[in-house]
């Protein structure tokens, strides 16, 4: 038999437990928004913004960093399968992957939020930045038309040149090569001086794809590129062979850095920052990278050289990083409020200043670093596979990019590569047709 005194203690404990256990939690707990991201360079800036937001609204925003981006991609996929996605997350990959997430019901359609108050939120952004998160009517992915992501920053991928090395080569650093023959002629001077030409991370296939697409848009125009993706024009078309031949010509002109085909972009960035290469092909994020590696690096931005007069030049660009809202989040309203705040002019300027990335908010561009402004100048001529409405088969993209590597190492001719790409393309088209049937 328990002592009566102990019985009292036990009863009071049970009472307290039941009373507080059943009371409303809302009075005590403030909502916490969870954000998953992969942007190591923005970690501190995000923490600071989180602090400011909590101070202002009382809502805590927990930024969780998962890097590198490959690991992040796998984490997001696994979380989607387990239905444990956070309130806000980013989707890395191609438009096809983005579409799969939307169709599976993981991503909130943000169109109504973007359109409210005379589309105030939507109007803040660069059109190009929003486009990469947008699915238009009759898109090939079968996604309901709408805007499914919020751009945090924008980027463009262009060519850069080292001004000091340009002078050493006897070239005018204020007048970079405009057309392809001018560009090729520089190769001779580079070889004579014992320097190295163009450096880029071409072990990462998408970077080769990017430059090849720049050339393709200039040579045959957007419509023909899209028709090729749709399977209406073969890769053995003379225009595509011309695109592939350009890489052979660049190589033969001595313009490529030795070992470029097995080089990752981080190494390429180090090489350019250390002034060991005259040209680089890189995205606007490089401003921050070069600043860290060599603050005295004197370089400028140029468009990839013009190959043809038939069509305008185009470069890859648009939204750099975007956030998506979990369609199953219980804090949807708070999440939208936070994202609107994050993309306000003030926060965008802070992010740009802290991380040297181009802001997605148009109004914030007035206060950016001059080097970043050079990248931003060409935002209007940007394009991106994510806005084309159709995606090339991944195996075709791989064959295309690996084929260019084979051309560069002198293993295959452009014609051979074109035939191989087309062979794979036809197999993929046949497979798609049989699946439809």
């Amino acid at each position, binding site marked *: 038999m328990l002592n009566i005194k102990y019985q009292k203690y036990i009863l009071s404990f049970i009472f307290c437990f039941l009373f507080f256990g059943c009371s409303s939690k809302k009075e005590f707990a403030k909502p916490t928004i969870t954000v998953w991201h992969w942007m190591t360079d923005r970690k501190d800036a995000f923490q600071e913004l989180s602090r400011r937001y909590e101070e202002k609204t009382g809502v805590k925003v927990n930024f969780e960093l998962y890097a590198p981006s490959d690991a992040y991609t796998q984490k997001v996929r696994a979380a989607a399968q387990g239905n444990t996605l956070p309130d806000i997350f980013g989707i890395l990959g191609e438009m096809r992957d983005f579409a799969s997430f939307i169709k*599976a019901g993981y991503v909130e359609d943000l169109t109504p939020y973007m359109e409210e108050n005379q589309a105030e939120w939507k109007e803040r952004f660069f059109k190009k930045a929003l486009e990469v998160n947008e699915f238009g009517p009759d898109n090939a992915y079968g996604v309901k038309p709408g805007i499914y992501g919020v751009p945090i920053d924008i980027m463009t991928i262009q060519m850069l040149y080292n001004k000091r090395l340009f002078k050493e080569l006897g070239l005018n650093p204020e007048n970079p090569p405009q057309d392809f023959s001018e560009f090729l002629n520089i190769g001779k001077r580079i070889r004579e001086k014992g320097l190295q030409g163009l450096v880029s991370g071409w072990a*990462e296939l998408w970077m080769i794809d990017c430059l090849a697409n720049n050339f393709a848009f200039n040579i045959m125009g957007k419509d023909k590129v899209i028709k090729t993706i749709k399977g209406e024009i073969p890769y053995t078309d003379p225009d595509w062979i011309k695109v592939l031949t350009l890489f052979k010509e660049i190589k033969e002109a001595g313009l490529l*850095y030795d070992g470029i085909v097995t080089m*990752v972009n981080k190494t390429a960035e180090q090489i350019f920052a250390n002034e*060991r290469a005259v040209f680089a092909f890189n995205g606007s994020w490089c401003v921050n990278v070069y600043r860290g590696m060599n603050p005295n690096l004197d370089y400028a931005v140029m468009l990839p050289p013009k190959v043809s007069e038939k069509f305008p030049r185009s470069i890859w660009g648009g939204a750099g990083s975007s956030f998506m809202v979990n369609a199953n989040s219980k804090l949807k309203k708070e999440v939208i409020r936070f994202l609107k705040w994050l993309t306000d002019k003030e926060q965008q300027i802070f992010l740009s200043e802290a991380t040297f990335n181009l802001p997605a908010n148009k109004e914030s561009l007035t206060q950016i670093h001059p080097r970043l402004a050079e990248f931003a100048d060409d935002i209007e001529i940007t394009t991106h596979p994510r806005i084309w409405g159709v995606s090339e088969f991944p*195996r075709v993209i791989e064959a295309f990019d690996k084929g260019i590597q084979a051309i560069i*190492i002198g293993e295959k001719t452009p014609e051979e590569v074109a035939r191989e790409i087309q062979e794979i393309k036809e197999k993929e088209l046949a497979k798609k047709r049989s699946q439809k049937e």
Partner: protein
Amino acid sequence: MRAKSTLENYLFILPALIIFSIFYIYPFYKVFQLGLYDWDGISPTKVFVGLGNFKEIIFEDKIWWKSMLNASYITLVALTFQNALAFCLALACDRQIRMRNFYRTIFFIPPVLSEVVVGLVWQWILDGNYGILNNFFVKIGLPHLARNWLSDPKTALNCVAFVHSWKGFGWGFLIFLAGLQTIPRELYEAAKVDGAGAWQVFKRITFPLMIPVMVLVAILTVLGTMQAFVLIIAMTGGGPAYHTEVPVLRILASMRGSSRFGYACAQGISFGVILVIVSFIQYRLSRKAREIY
């Protein structure tokens, strides 16, 4: 009574059986099941394609077979060069030589280093422009030997195979050394008394008694090397073109690059089956070798 005893026995192995089933059998079954679908890894719906993925791997995927060939070549180099080196060094360290423990430590450093670090260090050594190796060739008056080791299709795979062997020989060394130390010393002494020379001692005592250890090292080498990929990612990323692609990189490419999760699962299963067959053949061959000796 007997039934009770049998039940008790099964009860004892039940925890191990449950763990094995959850962590091995079920994932294997699940991966095989996913290999029968066309699935992007995200969509809630999967399209059943039967053995279509496996058929594509076997009959259509040329790159897959090229990657298998590359991995086989690296494995062959590891089986011969790496294991021969490990065995010779183990033999040397088994004797009463000076600084024996120092050598043992030194030889075991490469295997404990991170593969990424090893890959990046060797990438610098083999760099075509600023690499130590090319500088060395220039310094000794052989500049014609300098080249882009990792981006030249003629040398890329050999370089990867060499670095993999350099990184891996320490494991073999350690196992060989442990094996050599289990050979009774009396056998060597008796052989000496009988007037046997060093070669005869090696041929009649060391080699036959080391066969089980060699088989073990060979199986571990094959399994470890065929599945190597981190070092290759760090050194070449599978390039130039497809010259250093290996099966695990292809599985990763299918899963991440192409979003073909089902196909990647089928590749994983096919690769696993190939490894089991190779290990089985190795085992049979080693049994024959033991019979001969």
